[in-house]
């Protein structure tokens, strides 16, 4: 099994979810995160004082997939989340030694 993790723009959650569903993915987990990167932050002003906000809101999408489907999943995410503007985010894929469905105890491919 592999875990595909993507950092995307918050308003891309819906299209990414739909693209993944279309690609046959049955489950995923999302987390609110904040990112620092080339996109840079922005300047805010509060009570007349400027200040730099370095972190921008992002969403992390995690999908547990069987190795053969990693490419499909990555492409689905890229296809839905890419705007071409800086800050679209990253995807990384990490190895998973073992996966398990809590409800049934099913393992690995059967667990996702």
């Amino acid at each position, binding site marked *: 099994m592999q875990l595909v993790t993507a950092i995307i723009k918050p308003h891309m959650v819906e*299209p990414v979810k739909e693209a993944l569903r279309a690609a046959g993915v049955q489950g995923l987990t999302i987390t609110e995160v904040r990112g620092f990167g080339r996109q840079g932050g922005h300047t*805010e002003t509060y009570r007349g004082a400027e200040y730099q906000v370095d972190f921008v809101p992002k969403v992390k999408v995690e999908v547990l997939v069987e190795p053969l489907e990693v490419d499909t999943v990555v492409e689905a995410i890229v296809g*839905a989340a890419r705007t071409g503007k800086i800050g679209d985010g990253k995807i990384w894929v990490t190895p998973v030694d073992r996966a398990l469905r809590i409800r049934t105890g099913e393992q690995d491919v059967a667990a996702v």
Partner: protein
Amino acid sequence: MEIPLDDTQMILDNIFVFVCAVLVFFMQAGFAMLTAGLTRAKSVANIVMKNLMDMSVGVLVFAVVGYHIAYSGADFFGFSWLWGGYADAPTADYSLMLPVDFFFQAAFAAAAATIVAGALAERTQFRGYLLYTVFITGLIYPVVVNWQWGGGWLAQLGTPFEDFAGSTVVHSVGGWAALMGAIIIGPRIGKYGADGRPRALPGHSMPLAILGVFVLFIGWFGFNPGSQLAADIEVPRIAVNTALAAAAGAVLAMITSWIVSKKPDVSMAGNGLLGGLVAITAGAFSLDGYGSVVAGAIGGVIVVFSVLGLERAGVDDPVGAVSVHGVCGAWGTIAVGLLANGNAPFLEEGVSGLLYGGGVDLLVTQLIGTVAVFVFVCVAAGLLFSAIKAAGWLRVSPEEELAGLDIGEHGAPGYSFDMGTATGLVVDTPATATEKV
């Protein structure tokens, strides 16, 4: 003086001042929301608790000590009046009953006390704040009231000091105490960068802050009109002056902040409305409509520059209490010396300000009063806060400050969202991928 108890006008006066006092007490809710909104979430329970307790402690202390210092001139402690029989005791000068006068004045004392909470927010020990409350409502504020409304030396000047509802007597007292407190306690951790430049520590909730502004606005229609201490035909005019100044203050602060920082700042506009209100508090009776607009508008401009200036000077006042109440209070007091309109039919005495042809007499008096109160409060509050500091009761530990005062001072956080509800269940997304940005 015998009060004609069956006189409807006299009853009306008393009921009117009672209703106004309720509005002034309502300002406590406004102060609580404003201060909570403009400070950080991790100390929010502490700040509303301070507001709750300065009112509660303040009312009791003012009842047994402060009120008597303010008005008796002699009896410093006034336990006896609580025993009863105070119902039909009139106050000396007015047709007001003693209890309604106390009720109204107590609401003012609580307001003066609570101003300081914002300036000292997020770093002051709760017990130290309680101690401060006892002294401001029991001694510092009453002494200033005595000088003016108690018939003291300010009221006895050749040209008597004119502070209708308390730009100086109430607001500046709170504001200057806040200034001394903020200086002596020092800025919040993180307020100034390693380079010494101020950093923004944004307040956590603009809706609460602006709710507070609206509530304070409403309360001010008890504060100013009620200070007429009678239900008479001047009341509506005082109310209009108050509304015009508030509106002008908000608009000018918005414009000023728009120019200064490229965007119209929400909390500054709110502060501007309050600055306009404080600025008209001294002159709500003696200014005309134009003067009220001018006083309020300048108040709105002052607030913005004062907030920025104090911040640069190293004074960390998270909610702008010093600027709104201290600086605009001083401005409003001086504005009377410039803009009092004694020519309009409504002012029989005919005392006018400099710009209305009344010469400098009134202006000089106003400056004397403003400076005298500034000096007295700075010294008194300076001593008070220094003593509290020396006792180790002023500032919380850095650990506690960083974690927030809610847990440290009161044992539990001010906000506790359940897992899964803090962020709601709803993901905010546009409908289609074609709306990609």
